């Protein structure tokens, strides 16, 4: 159908890269936007879900199963199921991308909060902390390393999945990859792939720094 490797086509034609700096920049920006929105909304949804699952233990299994099923459905299939309702749009991509962050984030928030030692909680109660203040001032800070580890996995995973949304007309750097595939031209394909990896590595490193800054006590 689409592909046939042209032997003479070099992997990267730098003159193309030089001429398309604006396109590459625009694709990168869209990629970052799609990722930030997805992880942001993912976090906003995951916190209440995790807190519900913690408050009422019987909810834990259904919440983890449903988010697990969402995580298991292949991204392209999930996007495809949404298309009849939300069209080939940014909304479709975001619903799909957010769905994939939920399992990772909910799980890590739960595991992080569960890891707070019981005597620490007792001390907080003994000092007169109510449940809300205890959560915000004691439990969340202590759970932060594990939660941020989840944010890192979710972010890196999302950056990879954004490329797939090119097939529903979004895609950020995925557009370059798809473009290279359709035109059988290696340069945009390689640029899109490399930039996506660079973005993932950069985001992971940046979040690692955030993790260090926010949890100074866990430095060794």
């Amino acid at each position, binding site marked *: *159908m*689409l*592909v*046939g*490797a042209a032997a003479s086509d070099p992997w990267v034609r730098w003159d193309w890269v030089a001429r398309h700096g604006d396109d590459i920049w625009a694709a990168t920006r869209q990629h970052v936007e799609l990722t930030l929105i997805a992880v942001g909304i993912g976090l906003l949804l995951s916190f209440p879900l995790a807190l519900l699952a913690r408050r009422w233990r019987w909810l834990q*299994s259904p919440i*983890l*199963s449903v988010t*697990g*099923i969402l*995580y*298991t*459905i*292949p*991204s*392209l*299939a*999930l996007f*495809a*199921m949404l*298309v*009849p309702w939300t069209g*080939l749009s940014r909304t479709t991509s975001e619903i799909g991308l957010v769905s994939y962050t939920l*399992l*990772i984030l909910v*799980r*890590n928030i739960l*595991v992080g909060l569960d890891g707070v030692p019981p005597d620490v909680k007792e001390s907080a109660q003994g000092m007169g902390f109510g449940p809300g203040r205890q959560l915000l001032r004691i439990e969340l800070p202590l759970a932060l*390393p*594990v939660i941020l*580890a*989840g944010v*890192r*996995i979710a972010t*890196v*995973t999302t*950056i*990879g*999945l954004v*490329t*797939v949304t*090119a*097939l*529903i007309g979004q895609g950020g750097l*995925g557009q370059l*990859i798809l473009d*290279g*595939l359709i035109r059988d031209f*290696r340069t945009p*394909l*390689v640029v*899109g*792939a490399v930039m*996506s*990896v660079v973005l*993932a*590595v950069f985001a*992971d490193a940046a979040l690692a720094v955030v993790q260090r800054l926010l949890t100074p006590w*866990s430095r060794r």
Partner: protein
Amino acid sequence: MSFLGRVVEWFTTASHWQGDAGALHRLSEHVTMSAGAVVVAAAVALPLGVWLGHTGRGGSLAINLSNVGRAVPSFAILVIAAQLFGIGWQPAFAALVALGIPPMVTNAYVGLRDVDDDIRESARGMGMTGFQSLWRVELPVALPPLMAGVRTAAVQVVATATLAALVAWGGLGRFIVDGIAQRDFVQVFAGAVLVGALSILTELALAGLQRLIVPQGLRTRETSKNEPFRALVAGEMATEMRVNP
């Protein structure tokens, strides 16, 4: 007729199931390709991960492999494989094998590393050789995390096999990719349902397999609580969480 009504009609139309472009043939392509890729990937990854974990060598390699694997988009791997191997099943197969390896290496490594030193020493004390200890003691104990890696890999392979329709190969992804191209969203939706069902079945089947092969004495509370879908990220979390005390 409503959209979902038309989807139901799609599924109940015999011609959509028959022939080389029918759902049954596409399903068998998808399953054959995925199973083949997982088996080849496991044949490479599991011995490597087990050996690294048993000897305690190459730890950072084993752990970082799956982090790197996560950073490289599967879509990109597939498209680059098509440039390297041309069209047909070869690029899809190569890409799927490459995708399946990292989670299995990492989880096998972590599983073997996490075996209690006391258990190893007991095996030694009973006069077992290094290999006997590995085969009869460490491997069974490490089986749950190792299987979590296999499940993660298998579900990812099944998912990515959907994208293989883009590099001119068959599989269930054809319905989605062709449907989008033709703006035939009924076909797109039907394909998506088939792919989603196959992924969930894969996860459930491997969870069942795990239950069968993990020895009864080792089904700790934690393992038996490992419901389907939950173990998906358990392996990844195990590696991520070692960073934190």
